[in-house]
């Protein structure tokens, strides 16, 4: 029987179309970033890359990622564990709540935090009496990034842990394993790869987050400007090379992240085959 799309012509046509679209929407823009960064030669690129402001933007970006990832790692495991291993009233609601940061626009998230923790906000007014400042400083930026990226780890773990079920853990309990031992020897090895995958996604988003961060940053140069904000700032300053230098840096980070992800997938795939 001949199916639709079996002809050589159709197949070639579809492949060409896919290649053209990929090139137009993915390859060219990505190459364009690097082209623009080097448009005026190596020297301006290097100068922009090593400027004080860029260095501090890189530092802040790393700081945000370094603080966000561990918090969401622990939070994600805890949440996934709770949702998949226990039944309690409100479990379904909790499962829906996890997705809120995905559903809400990051700008709205930023504004919410500003209204809550700003100097005139409900919690902010109490904090400012204690001379604690969260908004318009790096702690605020970390806070909103944690909010925006918190579903990633949990979202990776929950389907897996649901599929695996709790049989192995129950067996562990009957053999007298303590909670911590159960987690270290059974749960963690089982979810290891999903966990790593969640961390990679969290990290990528933490590095690239713009919307929520821009609301609470106060855009103090050399202090609360991370790489994505730096891109916009330099672009508005008519410093195209500078903007695309920072953009290229972000793109490079993304590519490295994706490469690690691909490597891991390949690794798991091979393990599954041999197992």
């Amino acid at each position: 029987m001949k199916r639709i799309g079996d002809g050589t012509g159709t197949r070639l046509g579809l492949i060409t179309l896919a290649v053209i679209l990929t090139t137009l929407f993915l390859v060219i823009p990505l190459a364009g970033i690097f082209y623009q960064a080097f448009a005026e030669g190596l020297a301006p690129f290097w100068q922009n890359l090593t400027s004080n402001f860029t260095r501090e933007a890189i530092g802040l970006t790393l700081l945000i990622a370094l603080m966000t990832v561990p918090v969401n790692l622990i939070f994600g495991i805890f949440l996934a564990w709770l949702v998949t291993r226990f039944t309690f009233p409100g479990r379904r609601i909790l499962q829906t709540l996890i997705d809120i940061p995905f559903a809400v626009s990051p700008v709205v998230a930023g504004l919410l935090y500003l209204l809550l923790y700003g100097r005139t906000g409900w919690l902010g007014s109490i904090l400012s009496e204690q001379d604690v400042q969260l908004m318009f400083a790096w702690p605020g930026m970390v806070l909103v990034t944690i909010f925006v990226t918190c579903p990633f780890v949990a979202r990776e773990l929950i389907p897996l842990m649901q599929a695996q079920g709790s049989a192995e853990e129950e067996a562990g309990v009957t053999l007298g394993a303590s909670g911590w031992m159960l987690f270290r020897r059974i749960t963690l090895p089982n979810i290891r790869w999903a966990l790593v995958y969640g961390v990679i996604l969290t990290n990528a988003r933490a590095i690239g987050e713009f919307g929520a961060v821009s609301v609470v940053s106060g855009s103090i140069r050399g202090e609360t400007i991370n790489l994505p904000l730096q891109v916009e700032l330099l672009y508005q300053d008519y410093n195209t090379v500078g903007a695309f230098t920072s953009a290229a840096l972000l793109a490079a980070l993304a590519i490295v992240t994706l490469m690690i992800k691909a490597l891991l997938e390949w690794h798991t795939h091979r393990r599954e085959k041999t197992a």
Partner: protein
Amino acid sequence: MFLRTTLLRRVVATAALSMALGSTQAFSADRELLNASYDIARELFAELNPQFVEHWQEEHGESVEVKQTHAGSSTQARAILQGLRADVVTFNQVTDVDVLAQKGQLIPDDWQSRLPNYSSPYYSTMAFLVRKDNPKDIHTWADLAGDDVALVFPNPKTSGNGRYTYLAAWAASNHDNGNDDAATRDYMKRMLANVEVFDTGGRGATTTFAERGIGDVLITFESEANNIRNQYGPDDYEVVVPPVDIMAEFPVTWVDKNTARNGTEDLAKGYLEYLYSPEAQRTLAQYYYRVNDDEISKEFAERFPQTTLLRVEDALGSWEDVMQTHFANGGELDQLQRR
């Protein structure tokens, strides 16, 4: 093996963390000053701040650092109300500083009398940027209401820039017809009907006019008009300053609540006073801002055409009244735009 990898991981993590923390405090000055400023002043303060740092070092033997944040000045005012700890503000709207006094009680109500010239170390006015050789022959505010003239300026509702344009047109018309409000309304109607694009902000209007080639006249601050002309081609554009125009003040003040907390009151005052010094005034004039220093004014006289400047408060009443009568919902602007 296990031990070694965790050790390695710990070392890497510590190194990365200390790098991240360290680089946010790369150079250590004795004290820091945070200047919250309007959007288009980045280049200006990037030049003024190092001059001040050097000056302060010479005078007081203390090394200081001035940090900048830039955004629309209404955005900045709101951020300060919500906790941005700026020591000084350098805005382009008197109303945005007033907000700090009225809504936040962060500065005293009489802040304008704390520094010379109503706390405005430099000023500007509105200018017309026209295409080469001024083909539509635009010289006065009245010319803008002519037939077949397409105008570009930002929306007065959202932009301080646009607000000044609107008020300048109104005040100049009143000045010419001896405060005949009916005639002025008629003029304003025709002038507003000539607007081709109402962008939300100054930068957007610039792009519309210079890059998309829309309109015959871009109305913006004299300083901006000259900088745009230099940026987009001195041979393609001309800057026209009308004979009667509005005084656009650039108010500055220190934020008392924040300086008290940061221990920077003397530094903040010193910074703002420095803006009045001949050295800073020269830099300001180089960026096409008008200054009050006589020597510097003379030095740059050919940059700034003679014009009669009207203060908003003198010509149209207090800013509070002006905002209420003209820009509030259902105010003059809304009624004029109803066709």
